[in-house]
């Protein structure tokens, strides 16, 4: 990370967004006292991450990218272990275990060993464990990575519901653009630098242009015709012609009346965070990661569905 300076407000869900390898996990590690910053300083819940490590550790809850549960223990044993590590008042432990397990709907599985749990259940249990000691700041490092779409949306239901039950600040990282929409503010990171910071709506408004995706028989000639007639740059993405234009909805009638193309379908999308990422970094998050994660198609569809 290089020269990052951010402030996260209490009660906020703050998203750290960027491709894999952008330095998100490194930042989380530094904030959670697992790594020391080589220079600069950071405070979590008012405590310095280098000089007041124990106070920081006491104030935070963590859900890691890789599972950190003991799969030989039951769900309840994992939470009890956590309570003892954090020195929680004994009389409160069993009540709190029930509270957090009910929150993630695992109370009926409390006596099952974790190695019988599915990936989504494990992640939910980790979220429950992260909340056990009532942390003031909850760090979520890629909380939904590697989970199927259904589980991802249920995890998000729990995370967004947290503010209703807990007075908590959430700091999370993700490389799923559609998930960043859930955050109250996001910072887009690329190559160790913050390239944009704001609410999802602010960032999208900054891009301004709509995205018009056109499915057409002869892409090359269509590209030429559109360039000539409307003086618009267009690009080809996954067999479709993509045009960025202000007022996308009024561009479509002109497209049909002013040029003669055999258009099969047209869709107009309000700028998505994908476009935001593209406009700030000059590359899509997919290209930035070199390889497309399997569920990128879903991200793509979700981005188009939002208008």
């Amino acid at each position, binding site marked *: 990370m*290089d020269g990052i300076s951010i402030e996260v407000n209490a009660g906020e869900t703050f998203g750290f967004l960027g491709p894999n390898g952008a330095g998100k996990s490194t930042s989380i590690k530094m*904030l959670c006292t697992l790594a020391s910053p080589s220079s600069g300083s950071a405070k979590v819940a008012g405590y310095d991450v280098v000089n007041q490590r124990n106070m920081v550790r006491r104030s935070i809850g963590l859900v*890691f990218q890789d599972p950190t549960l003991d799969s030989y223990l039951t769900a309840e044993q994992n939470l009890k272990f956590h309570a003892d590590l954090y*020195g929680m008042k004994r009389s409160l432990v069993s009540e709190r275990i029930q509270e957090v397990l009910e929150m993630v709907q695992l109370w009926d599985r409390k006596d099952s060993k974790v190695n019988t749990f599915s990936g989504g259940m494990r992640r939910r249990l980790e979220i429950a464990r992260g909340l056990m000691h009532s942390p003031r700041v909850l760090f979520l490092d890629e909380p939904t990575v590697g989970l199927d779409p259904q589980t991802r949306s249920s995890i998000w239901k729990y995370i967004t519901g947290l503010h209703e039950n807990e007075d908590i600040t959430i700091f999370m990282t993700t490389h799923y653009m559609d998930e960043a929409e859930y955050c109250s503010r996001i910072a887009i990171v690329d190559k160790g630098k913050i390239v944009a910071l704001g609410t999802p709506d602010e960032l999208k408004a900054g891009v301004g242009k709509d995205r018009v995706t056109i499915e057409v028989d002869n892409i090359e000639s269509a590209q030429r015709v559109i360039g000539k007639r409307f003086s618009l740059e267009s690009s080809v993405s996954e067999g479709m012609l993509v045009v960025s234009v202000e007022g996308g909805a009024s561009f479509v009638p002109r497209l049909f009346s002013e040029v003669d193309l055999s258009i099969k379908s047209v869709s107009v999308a309000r700028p998505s965070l994908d476009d935001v990422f593209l406009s700030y970094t000059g590359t899509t998050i997919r290209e930035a990661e070199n390889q497309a994660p399997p569920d990128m198609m879903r991200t793509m569809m979700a981005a188009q569905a939002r208008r």
Partner: protein
Amino acid sequence: MNSKTVVSDSHEAPDDKDCQQDGLVRPVIYVPPASTLATSSRAVGIVMRRELIRFRADKIRIVTTLLQPMLYIFVIGTGLTSLTSNGSLVNLRTFIYPGALGMSVMFTAVFSAGSIVWDREFGFMREMLVAPISRTSIVVGKGLGGTVVASFQAIIVLSVAGMAGVPYSPALMIELLGEAALLAFTLTSFGILASVRVKTMQGFMGLTQMLIMPLFFTAGAMFPLSRLPAWLTVVTRVNPLAYAIDPIRRAVFSYLALPQKVREMYAPGITWDGWKVPTIGELLIVLLIGIALLGVAISQFRNIE
């Protein structure tokens, strides 16, 4: 890296917007503000208890670690009996028993310490590292956990003592258990030191196998420590394990009705240039080595993790 990040927090502010909403639970700080001896010992306790829970859950491990000493006592012990003169007063199974007990404890203790490598590999170590407890608590908890687990293993091996001709005298059993527990502590400390440095389970298994077998064979587990060639005498005297096996054998033989001369032959004790090291001295050596190993392990762990 040059970064400045502030995750601020203003729960103290009475007009915090979120807190005014109905039905919102105010934060309850369950965690005490400073770490005390009580919280540290509680952390040590839970790290230790986790080793016990896992040991209990791992039934196969209990059986396999029992199988090994049984092979030594009943197969090798019985098999080699035909070599000894038929007039021998001492059953070879009885002679091998202390070594087999020690071996069982050694393996259990070292592999229990290997759970540090395991935890690191499967991510659980991070759960402990971000908790507001000292690194020392983690290591001490692991050390005690391995000691207790290996002592349980010793109890299992002690339960078959009669079949090897060792009398079930309560005093002898307690003495043997105490000596086994001490051996367990030192071996766990050794295992922890190894697991702090070695990062993969394969590496850990390889390293400990490579070290344990030679240590075991030169500890006098399978032969008396007297009348050895000079080189082997030196090797056995510098092997710390010899000082743990010898008291066990001395204890077993002191409970057998044997002529003094026979007892001297089978359990001669460890001599330094003719001076016989007393049992208490031997146990002290084992204890000090264990403490030293654990101390080094703690300082290494604090530096690395």
